[in-house]
C-alpha cells in the first residue's frame, strides 16, 4: 500500500462584529424575523448605491495584522457575478485582485508533537458582503422556496489558507486558534451555530507510488457546522479519496475539482455538483465604490488597538505569572473573558498558581455543570481573588474555601458574609494551642509515635481537631501539634 500525505487548505468566512452591514446602516443581528433587517441598499434595489462601512475596514485590518498579513496601501471593491435567488443584485461585492490583507501566517500547536508549533501560511483575507438565505420547504410535498434577505450585505472576512495542513487534527487546531484569535480581538463572535463562522475545506492526497508522486483530484467540502464535523469530514474524505483512487486510478490531471457536502448524521460526504468548467464570475471593479486608501498612519492606529494576541498572552502568563505552558494554554484557550478573569483573580489573591488551579478545576467545572459562560459566572473575579487570598494567608483551608465558593455561587454575597453564614470564624492561635494540648493529653500514643519518627501519626488528631472546632485550619493544627510534641 503506497504512502500518502493528506493536503488540506481551509477557507474560513467570519462575520465581522460591526454595528451595521457592509454597505448600509441595517443591523446584522442574528435571529430577527425574515426580511426585517433590509433596506434598498442591501436589497440592491434599482438606483440604490452602496457606501462602505469604515468599521468593517478597521476590523479587517486588525484581523490581518494579527494574522501577520501584509496590508497594502490600497484595496478596492470588485463585483462577482452570478445568478442565485438569494443574491439580489445578481452580483456580490467582494475583493478580487487587491484584497485588504495578503500573505500572512498563523502558528498552531502541532498535534503530532506536543510543545511544537506548525506555521500555516495564509494566502489572503478579503472583505465581501454576505448573500441571503434560501429556505426550501419540500416537506409537505410542495416546492415552496422562501428567501430571507436579512443576511444580505453582512460583512464577511474570507480567510484563505495555503494548503499547508497535513491532517484533520491540524485543521482543527488551525480553526481553534483562528477562532480564539478573532474572538480575542473582538473582530468576530465566530459563532458557528449562527453562521458567523463558516468553513470550506479543500482536500486531496499526495501518494507516493513506486517513487512517483501522484495527486488525487481536489475536493471542496462544504456544510460543516462544527469543528468536530470538519475533523470527521476530512478524515472521511481522505479515506474515501484513497479508496476512490484505488478503484479508478483517477488523479488531479484527469478529474476536475468537485464539491461535496457533509452529512453529519450519516458521517459521510456526498457529491454536490461537478465544477465541469470553473465558473466565470466576470469580476470587475465596482464602479459604485471608490478604491480604499489605507494610509500607514491608519494601519499603525489599528495596530495600536491590538493589545495582545493569544500567543503573546500565553507567553506572558508563563513569564509574568509563573504558570506552566500547559496551564497558560488552558486559560488562554478559554478566550479573552477568561483571561481577564484569571488576571484579576491572580492579582487580587496575589497567588497566580492557586488562581490558575481553581479556575481550571472549580470554575470550569461549574461553568460546565451550569452550562454558562464566564461572562455570566456568579462569582466576580475580585471576589474569588479575595477568597483565594485568604487561603494563601492561611485564614481559610482549601476545604472551607470550597464551602465558601459553593455558597458564593448560590448567593450574591461578599466573602465575609459568606463566612459568617457558614459559621466560619478566625480561630486565634491560643485557642488552637489549648485544643492541641488537650488532644495530645488524651492520646499519648501519638506523642510516642511522633517521637519515634512517625510524623504522620499527627494526622489522626487533625481530624479530631476539626470535629471539635470546624474552623481550625488543619495546616495550623498540624504545625501546632508537632511544635508541642517536639517542645
Amino acid at each position, binding site marked *: 500500500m503506497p504512502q500518502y500525505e493528506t493536503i488540506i487548505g481551509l477557507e474560513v468566512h467570519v462575520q465581522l462584529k460591526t454595528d451595521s452591514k457592509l454597505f448600509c446602516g441595517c443591523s446584522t443581528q442574528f435571529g430577527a424575523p425574515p426580511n426585517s433587517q433590509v433596506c*434598498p*441598499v442591501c*436589497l*440592491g*434595489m*434599482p*438606483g*440604490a*448605491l*452602496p*457606501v*462602505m462601512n469604515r468599521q468593517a475596514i478597521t476590523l479587517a485590518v486588525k484581523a490581518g495584522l494579527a494574522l501577520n498579513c501584509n496590508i497594502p496601501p490600497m484595496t478596492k471593491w470588485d*463585483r462577482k*457575478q452570478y*445568478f442565485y*435567488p438569494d443574491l*439580489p*443584485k*445578481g*452580483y456580490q461585492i467582494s475583493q478580487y485582485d487587491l484584497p485588504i490583507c495578503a500573505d500572512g501566517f498563523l502558528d498552531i500547536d502541532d498535534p503530532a508533537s506536543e510543545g511544537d508549533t506548525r506555521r500555516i501560511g495564509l494566502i489572503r483575507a478579503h472583505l465581501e458582503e454576505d448573500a441571503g438565505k434560501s429556505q426550501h420547504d419540500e416537506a409537505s410535498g410542495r*416546492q415552496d422556496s422562501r*428567501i430571507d434577505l436579512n443576511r444580505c450585505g453582512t460583512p464577511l472576512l474570507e480567510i484563505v489558507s495555503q494548503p499547508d495542513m497535513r491532517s484533520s487534527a491540524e485543521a482543527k487546531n488551525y480553526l481553534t486558534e483562528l477562532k480564539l484569535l478573532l474572538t480575542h480581538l473582538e473582530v468576530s463572535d465566530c459563532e458557528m451555530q449562527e453562521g458567523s463562522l463558516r468553513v470550506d475545506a479543500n482536500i486531496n492526497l499526495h501518494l507516493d507510488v513506486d517513487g512517483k508522486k501522484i495527486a488525487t483530484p481536489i475536493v471542496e467540502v462544504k456544510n460543516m457546522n462544527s469543528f468536530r464535523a470538519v475533523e470527521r469530514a476530512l478524515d472521511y474524505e481522505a479515506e474515501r479519496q484513497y479508496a476512490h483512487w484505488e478503484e479508478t486510478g483517477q488523479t488531479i490531471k484527469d478529474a476536475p475539482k468537485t464539491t461535496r457536502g457533509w452529512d453529519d448524521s450519516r458521517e459521510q460526504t456526498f457529491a454536490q455538483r461537478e465544477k465541469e468548467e470553473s465558473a*466565470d464570475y*466576470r*469580476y*470587475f471593479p465596482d*464602479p*459604485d*465604490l*471608490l478604491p480604499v486608501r489605507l494610509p500607514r498612519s491608519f494601519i499603525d492606529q489599528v495596530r495600536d488597538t491590538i493589545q495582545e494576541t493569544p500567543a503573546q498572552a500565553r507567553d506572558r502568563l508563563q513569564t509574568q505569572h509563573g504558570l506552566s505552558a500547559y496551564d497558560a494554554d488552558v486559560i488562554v484557550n478559554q478566550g479573552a473573558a477568561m483571561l481577564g478573569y484569571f488576571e484579576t483573580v491572580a492579582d487580587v489573591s496575589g497567588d497566580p498558581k492557586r488562581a490558575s488551579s481553581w479556575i481550571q478545576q472549580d470554575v470550569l467545572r461549574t461553568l460546565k455543570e451550569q452550562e454558562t459562560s464566564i461572562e455570566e459566572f456568579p462569582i466576580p473575579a475580585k471576589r474569588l481573588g479575595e477568597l483565594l487570598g485568604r487561603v494563601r494567608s492561611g485564614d481559610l483551608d482549601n476545604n472551607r474555601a470550597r464551602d465558601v465558593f459553593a455558597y458564593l455561587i448560590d448567593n450574591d454575597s461578599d466573602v465575609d458574609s459568606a463566612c459568617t453564614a457558614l459559621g466560619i470564624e478566625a480561630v486565634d492561635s491560643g485557642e488552637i494551642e489549648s485544643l492541641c494540648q488537650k488532644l495530645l493529653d488524651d492520646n499519648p500514643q501519638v506523642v510516642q509515635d511522633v517521637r519515634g519518627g512517625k510524623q504522620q501519626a499527627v494526622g489522626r488528631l487533625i481530624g479530631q481537631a476539626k470535629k471539635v472546632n470546624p474552623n481550625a485550619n488543619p495546616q495550623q493544627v498540624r504545625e501546632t501539634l508537632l511544635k508541642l510534641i517536639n517542645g
Partner: protein
Amino acid sequence: MLDSVSAILNALASGDASARQITERSLDAIAQTDPKINAVTHVAAEAALATADDVDRRRAAGQPLGALAGVPIAIKDLICTTDMPTTCASRMLRDFVPPYDATVIRKLRDADAVLIGKTNMDEFAMGASNETSAYGPTRNPWNHDRIPGGSSGGSAATVAAGQVPASLGSDTGGSIRQPASHCGITGLKPTYGRVSRYGLVAFASSLDQIGPMAWSAEDVALLLETIAGYEPRDSTSLDTPVPEYSKAIQSADLRGIKIGVLRDGLEQDGLDESVRKSVTEAMQVFIDLGAEIVDVQLPHSQYWVPTYYVIAPCEASSNLSRYDGAHYGHRSDADIDPADGPLLSMYRHSRQEGFGSEVKRRIMIGTYALSTGYYDAYYNKALKVRRLIRGDYDAAFQQADLLLGPTAPTSAFALGDKLDDPIQMYLCDLYTVGANLAGIPAISIPAGLDDSGLPIGVQLQAPALEESRLLFAAAAFQSQTQFHQLRPGKP
C-alpha cells in the same frame, strides 16, 4: 414667455400667475401635444396640482419658498420617485414604484418644484433615438417624422413641445446633449460626481450623470444649482461646494477666454455640412464676444466610441443582472424548460420577455467582454485607453479654457433610419462620449437650423467642476443669438 423657468419665477413672484395656473397650463399642453409626440410616460396631475396649491398657499401666507417654487419639471423615467412609477421604459420594470426618492428628486421637492411626470426614453437609457422604449418612440416636436434623439428624448421633447419649461435627463454617452441638440434646447451633462446618482437607475455607473435640460443656459443654471451637491449615500459624489451658477452667467464678456476647436473633429466623415457650418458660425460669435480660438488635439478621439462601447456594456451587463424575475422585474409565467429546470427557466424566460433587443445586445457584449479570456483584450484595454483619453483632455485644457465642436454629426434623422444598424446608431455618440469617459462637464446649445428647419446644437466642454465656465460661455452666446428662442412651428 412662460416656457422659461426664470419668466415663470418672475410671473409667480409678481402675482401675474399662480402656481396652479402654470401647472394647469403645463397639464393642458401635455394633453394636447403628447398624443402626437409621446414624450411623457406618466402624468402626476393630482400630485402636481397639490404641490402647486401648496406653493400658492405658502406664498400668500408670506412663508419662505424654494428656489424653483411652482415651476413644472418633468423627470426622465429612470430617476426614482416614490409617487410615480420608475420604469426605465422597459417591460422589465413596468410596475416598479420605488420606495424612495432619488437625491435629485428630494432636492427638487425641497425647492418646491412641481413634479409633473415622467418622460419617455430609450430602454434603460440605451439608444440615441428614443426608439427602443417599451412605450414606443417619442417624436421630435419640430418634425414628427424625426426622432428626438436619445436616450433622454422624452425629456428633450417635453421641453421643446412646450409641455414644461425644464426637465431632468441623464447622460451616459451623450444622452442629454444629443437630444437637446436635436430638439433645439440647452442640455448640460455635469461633471461626474457633481450631481448625486443616488436613485438614478444605473446603466453604466462610471459614466452616468443626471443633468438639466431647458431652453436657455440661464434656466439650466438654475436647475443645476438646485440638484448639484454632495450626497453621503453616493460614494462617487464630490464633496465640494456648489457655486451660484445662476450668478456666474451674468456677464457677456469673453475676453481672455481661449476656446479650443478640434479641427480633426470638423473634418470627420459623416459630419453633416450644416452642422459644420453651425460650428464655424458659433466660432465667429465667440470671437465677437472677445474669445480667442485656438486649435487643439485630442489624439485618441478615434477610440472614444469603441472604448465607450466596451465599458458601458460591461457595466450594464452587471447592473442589469438584478432584473431576474426573482427580485426585480417582470416574471415570466412560461412553461419550465425541462433541460433548464424551474429556476434557470424562470430566469431565462423573464429576461427574454422583459428586455428589448438593444438591451439584450449590450448585456451580451458586456458579458462577453468581461468573461475570462477576453477581459484583458477588451475591458482592461478599454480602461487603459480611457486613461489616455483623460490625459488628452488634461493636455487640451492646458491650451484652452473650453472646447467647442459639434454635439451630433447630423440633425435629427428619420424614425427607423438607424434602428436596424446599431453601429450607425452608436456613431451618434461620436462627439459626446469623450466627456463621459473623462468625467468632465459639457453642454449642448442651439446654434442654428438646417435646410429642413431642424435644430442643430454645438457642444462646449470644460475641465472638471467648471460648469460655471460652460454656463457663462453658453449664456454669453445666447445673449448674442436667437437660436434658443426659436420654437417648433407646425410640424
